[in-house]
């Protein structure tokens, strides 16, 4: 049923219908509306049988999730930005222990300088934490991905984070088709943990593993991650058959079939990107876009197939690695490593940091430059970089455009 809802509320209602047994959360903008709503649902009985722990930190939140999941309870939390970093140690622990915790990340910049607005530096910084990372392009997709996240997590015993752009999605009110309780109950079976702590059958979880077996344990983790690349498309297809919505699975190609230039992006920026793609098409430029729904594990084959014989690939980066450059762009190059010939030119463009809007005009200007080959693919580019501001700061800018 369609409802006019704030993104956070839509996600909270959907999570509640996934019947988590334990929620442990610590407030941080822009995640707050999600966990506030869930607290209400637990108090009113709309989410029955759920224990809500108001913990003292995000580290405590993830740790409590580890304990709850360890005894076999379906477990959920949400965070953003600094909170995700404060969880970092526990994130690696949760994935190492194979605990199917589901977490919303309301993507937000990381300080310093402190900034509460949207980019994707937070989840990108945890790309190697062993968590599945799914990125939503809209609130509808955020809702749909949460339902699938629980299925994926519990089927593979892997933690999953669903990333949705802070404020841009979490605080945006739009029509969302909320999955009905009965539909979710049919789609998401009760949690049957692969293993859990049970006093009747005591096991030791979290042993110390030395050089003789550590590599193998980590190898199995990699293998499990790769299994998600097979599992997610299946879950996505099942989801479509029940809920009638195509959520794309691993990637969302748009007009890529015959495209010369393809824009790769994650999250809400994709809506604007697609509008620019349409405009370029009208002007006779064979443009397309590729949304990455599943960023971790990295769907290299799906990315390669979608990019196909395109000559140019523009990667819109909502985060970057200072001193290095691209994050997603490097993964795109990795996916194209066995492409025929030299493969396409890949342009890394940092855009929309700390809440700066990524406008259609800027994107159009960028793509016009790319198509006209006015941009050097070997350099890191910053969209809408304010040169005047840099000069006023007394720092001469260089190697940027």
């Amino acid at each position, binding site marked *: 049923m369609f409802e006019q809802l704030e993104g956070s509320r839509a996600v909270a209602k959907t999570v509640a219908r996934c019947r988590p*047994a*334990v929620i*442990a959360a610590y407030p941080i903008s822009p995640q707050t509306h999600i966990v506030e709503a869930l607290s209400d649902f637990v108090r009113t009985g709309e989410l029955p*049988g*759920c*224990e809500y*722990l*108001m*913990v*003292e*930190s995000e*580290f*405590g*939140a993830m*740790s*409590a*999730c*580890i*304990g*709850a*999941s*360890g*005894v*076999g*309870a379906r*477990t959920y939390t949400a965070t953003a930005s600094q909170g995700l970093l404060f969880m970092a*140690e*526990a994130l690696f*622990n949760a994935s190492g*222990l194979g605990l199917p915790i589901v977490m919303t990340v309301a993507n937000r910049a990381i300080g310093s300088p402190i900034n509460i607005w949207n980019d994707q530096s937070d989840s990108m910084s945890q790309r190697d934490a062993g968590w599945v990372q799914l990125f939503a392009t809209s609130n509808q997709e955020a809702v749909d991905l949460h339902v699938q996240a629980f299925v994926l997590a519990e089927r593979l015993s892997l933690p999953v984070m669903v990333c949705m752009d802070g404020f841009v999605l979490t605080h945006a009110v739009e029509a969302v088709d909320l999955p009905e309780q009965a539909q979710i109950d049919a789609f998401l079976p009760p949690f049957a943990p692969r293993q859990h*702590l*049970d*006093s009747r*059958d*005591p*096991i*030791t*979880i*979290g*042993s*110390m*593993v*030395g050089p003789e*077996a550590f590599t193998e344990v980590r190898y199995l983790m990699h293998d499990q991650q790769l299994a998600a690349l097979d599992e997610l498309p299946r879950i996505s297809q099942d989801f479509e058959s029940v809920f009638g919505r195509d959520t794309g699975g691993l990637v969302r190609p748009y007009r890529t079939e015959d495209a010369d230039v393809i824009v790769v992006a994650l999250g809400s920026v994709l809506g604007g990107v697609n509008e620019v793609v349409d405009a370029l098409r009208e002007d006779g430029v064979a443009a397309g876009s590729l949304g990455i729904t599943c960023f971790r594990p990295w769907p290299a084959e799906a990315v390669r197939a979608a990019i196909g014989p395109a000559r140019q690939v523009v990667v819109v980066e909502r985060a970057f690695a200072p001193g290095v450059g691209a994050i997603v762009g490097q993964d795109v190059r990795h996916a194209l490593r066995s492409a025929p010939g030299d493969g396409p030119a890949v342009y890394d463009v940092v855009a929309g940091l700390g809440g700066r809007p990524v406008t259609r005009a800027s994107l159009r200007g960028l793509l016009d430059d790319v198509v006209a080959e006015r941009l050097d693919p070997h350099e890191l580019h910053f969209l809408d970089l304010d040169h005047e501001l840099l000069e006023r700061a007394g720092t001469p800018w260089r190697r940027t455009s």
Partner: protein
Amino acid sequence: MTDLKLYQVGTFAAGNRLVDLELRSVQAHADRANSITSGHRACQGCGEALGARYVLDAAMRAAGGDVVVANATGCLEVFSTPYPESSWQVAWLHSLFGNAPAVAAGMAAGLRALGRETRVVGQGGDGGTVDIGFGCLSGMFERNDDVLYVCYDNQGYMNTGVQRSGATPPAARTANTAPLGPEPGNAFGQGKSAPLIAMAHEIPYVATATVADLRDLERKVEKAMSIRGARYLHVLVPCPLGWAAASSDTIRLARLATESGIFPVFEAEYGEVTAATPIRRPVPVDEYLRLQGRFAHLFGKHARPDLVARIQAAADRNIVRFGLVEAEPRTGS
């Protein structure tokens, strides 16, 4: 456990053979859980291994064997679970160094949501408890989560090679508080009494104990398990390695720590002290300190009686504060 008290080597104790079967210690029963069983890799004379065995077996007995354990990183975790071996015969999970109280809180929440009656014990060393895990511990107390958290206090980061923790006593030599300079060993400060801070949360039950009085330790675990909500047990567990003491002196050192007043043994409910174990035979801190190499620099060629006096003053304060000597000693029967 029993009103029967016999006087033995300076403290109240009674050998198991002298009491009725049902009054004997948990360890005296053939059906004890052996929660942490033999074959682990703790040092000879390890107070922590002994303490954990008594605590968990008592908890298991009190809960009819229905217990899960969250363990912090540290000696206890390392010496008990070198993959593929495990000494644990209880359902046991180790997550991280600083999060055992939060993991335990999560377990309790999960079990409650699942409708299971299983009880939760969290445990860690002093570093994991009073330092890196302190935020999580305080949160667990403040929420009154249904967890018994046990700190095995050996007064330092022994697992990483004997560095100081917030529980290391003044003047003690550690790997990073060497007996060098005008203030040798660990700095003198106000210290960090985790039991007193626990009491400030006004949780239902706080107690201290040592491995010198294992019946007392068992009794306190039993009492803690009879209560719901957040409970805190702080157990002094001498460490032969970190204290540079003889392995055969572990129990003696724990006893001297209480008899000198340096480690008060007491119970508190809802923020108020309800009982303190009286010192039957008070001893100067000197007797306690001299057995430990970590205090050797206070006595040798460059003796520092001034620092010993400061430690004695701290012990005297404890004796007054908790009424350890003035209290009427319980008489043996």
